[in-house]
C-alpha cells in the first residue's frame, strides 16, 4: 500500500503498465520534460524517454488517429487529450474509427487504445467542459470516470490492458485533493462494475467522480438526521453497472443521480431512464437528477461556483425523494 493522490495514482498506473508492457507508450502535448498538465505525466519522460513519451504538435485528431492506427498494429498507445474541451477536435477519430473498427471488420480488428483527458472544475480552472455523456451514446466505446486514487490507478491499468478503446475521464478537482491507500503492484479495477461508496437503506444516490464525494458529504450529514443514504460510485459509465444500481433501488425504492456535467442529456438521464424502465415497481418516489444548469461553464470563480452541484444540492434532491420536499 502507498498513499497517493489521484494524479500520482494515474501516473503510477501508466508507469507500471509501461514497465510491464513495452508496447505501451504515451502520446500527448507537453507530456515530456514539462511533466504534463497538472503534473499528469510527471516523471514518465525521465524514466521512459522520448520514444515512449511523445510530445506531439497541437493536432488532437492526428494524435488520436495515429494512436488508433498504431493500436491496429498491436501497440497499446495511451493518447492524452490534455483537456476534455479538446475532444471535439478528435471527434471523428474517436466515434467513427476507434468505435467502429472492431465491429466493421467482423470482430477481427482490436483497438487497444486508451484516451485519457481532464475534465471539470478544479485547481486548474481551465477547460472545464465535461462531455462524457456523448461517448456513452456511441457503441464500441468504453468510458470510465474514477472518483478515488485507488480506482484511478485500477481503471487506468484496466483501460491500458483492455483490447477495446477506452476513454478515461480524469476529474480535475480530485487531482491533488486527497491521498488514499493504493495497493502496490498489479492493481486492476475491472471496467464495468460500480462500487458502493457508502451503504444505506433509504435512498440510492448514483454519482460520478467529484459528486461521489459531495454525495458522501451529504449522506454523512443526513445520517445524523436518520436518513440512511446509499451512495453508488458508477466508475464505469459505459457499459455501466445496471444490476448494482437496480438492486440498490429495489432495496431503497428511491433514486437520485448526480454528476458535474450538464443535467440535460447527461449520463444521469440514462441511469434514471433505465431505472424507470426496469425497476419501476420498486420506485416509491420520483427520481431526482442533480447536474449543472443549462449554461456553458462560466470562467470566473464566483460565477462557476454557482453552477457546480453542491452537497447541499444533492441533500435537497435526497430530501425531495425521501420526504417529498418541494424542489
Amino acid at each position, binding site marked *: 500500500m502507498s498513499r497517493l493522490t489521484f494524479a500520482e495514482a494515474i501516473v503510477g498506473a501508466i508507469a507500471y503498465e509501461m514497465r510491464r508492457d513495452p508496447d505501451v*507508450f504515451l502520446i500527448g502535448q507537453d507530456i515530456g520534460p514539462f511533466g504534463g498538465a497538472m503534473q499528469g505525466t510527471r516523471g514518465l519522460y525521465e524514466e521512459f524517454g522520448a*520514444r515512449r513519451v*511523445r510530445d*506531439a*504538435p497541437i*493536432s488532437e*485528431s*492526428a*494524435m*488520436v*488517429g*495515429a*494512436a*488508433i*492506427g*498504431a*493500436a*491496429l*498494429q*498491436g*501497440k497499446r*498507445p495511451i493518447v492524452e487529450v490534455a483537456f476534455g474541451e479538446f475532444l471535439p477536435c478528435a471527434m*471523428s*477519430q474517436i466515434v*467513427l*474509427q476507434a468505435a*467502429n*473498427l*472492431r*465491429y*466493421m*471488420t*467482423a*470482430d*477481427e*480488428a482490436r483497438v487497444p487504445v486508451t484516451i485519457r483527458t481532464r475534465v471539470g472544475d478544479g485547481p486548474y480552472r481551465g477547460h472545464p467542459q465535461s462531455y462524457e455523456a456523448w461517448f456513452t451514446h456511441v*457503441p*464500441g466505446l468504453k468510458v470510465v470516470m474514477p472518483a478515488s486514487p485507488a480506482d484511478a490507478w485500477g481503471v487506468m491499468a484496466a483501460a491500458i490492458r483492455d483490447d477495446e478503446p477506452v476513454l478515461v475521464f480524469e476529474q480535475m478537482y480530485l487531482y491533488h485533493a486527497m491521498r488514499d491507500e493504493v495497493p502496490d503492484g498489479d492493481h486492476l479495477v475491472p471496467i464495468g462494475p460500480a462500487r458502493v461508496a457508502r451503504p444505506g437503506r433509504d435512498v440510492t444516490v448514483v454519482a460520478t467522480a467529484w459528486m461521489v464525494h459531495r454525495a458522501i458529504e451529504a449522506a454523512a450529514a443526513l445520517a445524523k438526521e436518520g436518513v440512511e443514504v446509499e451512495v453508488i460510485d458508477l466508475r464505469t459509465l459505459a457499459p455501466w453497472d445496471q444490476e448494482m444500481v437496480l438492486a440498490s433501488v429495489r432495496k431503497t425504492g428511491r433514486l437520485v443521480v448526480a454528476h458535474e456535467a450538464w443535467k440535460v442529456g447527461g449520463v444521469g438521464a440514462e441511469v434514471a431512464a433505465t431505472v424507470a424502465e426496469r425497476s419501476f415497481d420498486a420506485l416509491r418516489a420520483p427520481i431526482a437528477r442533480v447536474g449543472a444548469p443549462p449554461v456553458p461553464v462560466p470562467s470566473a470563480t464566483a460565477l462557476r461556483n454557482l453552477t457546480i452541484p453542491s452537497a447541499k444540492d444533492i441533500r435537497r434532491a435526497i430530501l425531495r425523494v425521501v420526504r417529498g420536499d418541494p424542489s
Partner: protein
Amino acid sequence: MAVDSEPWLEVYRWMLWSRLFEAECGRRNPRWFPAEGEEATIVGSFFDLRLDDVAAPHYRGPFVVYAMRGAEPWRLAAQVLGKAAGYSKGRSVPFNGPLGTGIVPWVAGDLGTTLGVATGAGLAFEYDGSDRVCVVSFGDGTANRGDFHETINLAACWSLPVIYVCQHNGWAISEPADSYLKATVSARAAGYGIPGESVDGNDVLAVRAAVGQAVARARNGGGPSLVEACTYRLQGHWAADRASYRVAEAVEAWRERDPLPRLKRVLDERGLADASALERIESELGAEVAEAFARAEASPDPGPADLGLAST
C-alpha cells in the same frame, strides 16, 4: 528503372482486373464508386509494397489493392451485393477489405480520418525500428480536410515511414478541382519540410517510379513523402451518376489518355506480350470476375447472427 526486368505484364493484368471487376461492381450496385481511368494510379501506388507493409487505399477503386494482397474476389463481390460472405459480414461499407491483408480498413464514410489511422501504422513501424512502411492514398477533395494537414505534419515531425499519395482525379463529386485547390497538392509538401512530387497518374511507370522512390526513402528512415498522381474520374461519382454537371469533351480528352491502352503500347513496343496473349488475359479475367459475382450472388444475405449483438 530497367523497364524490361519489371513485371509489366503482371501490372497490366491487375489494372485490367480492376477495370473489369469495377465495371461489374457498378453494374450490380448503382451506389458503387467507379474507378475507371484511375487504375494506373491505384495499381502503381500499391503494386510494389511488401505484404508486411500496410496499404491504405482511397475508397475509390480499393478492391484491386485488396486482391493484389490476397483478398478473394468473390468475397469482395459479396460486399458489393451486401451478402454475408463479405469480409465484414455485411456490416461495413462495401469498399472495405480484409484486415488480414495488411490494410487500413474502411469502417466509416467520413473522408480524411483514414489518413490518421494510416499514419498510426507508420508510427508503429517507427516505434519498432522496423523497415516496414505504409502507403495511404486519398482524393484531391479529401486533401482539404484538416486531417490531411494534421497527420502529414505529425508524420513529418516524427519522421514516420508513410507515403501519402493523392489520387487526383479532378473531381469531388460534382465539384471540379480548380474550385477547391488553388495550387498543386504536392506544393503543400514544402510546408511540412517533406519531399513532394506530381506525376502523370495515367502513366503507371511514372507512378511506380515516384512512389517507389518515396517508399525507399521511408524504409531507410527518410520519413514521409507526398506524391500527387494526376488522373481523371472517367465515370460519375457513383455508377448511377450521369455527371450532367460536366462537359463531355473534357471526359473524351481524358479517354484518349486511358492508362490501359497506354500500358498496352509499352508492352507491345517492348515485345512483352502480343495481341493474342493480351486477349487471353482479358478472357481469363472476364471469366474470373463473372465467376466471383456468380458465387457471391448465390451466397446468403446476412442474418441476425451476423449483427453481432453479443460482441458488444
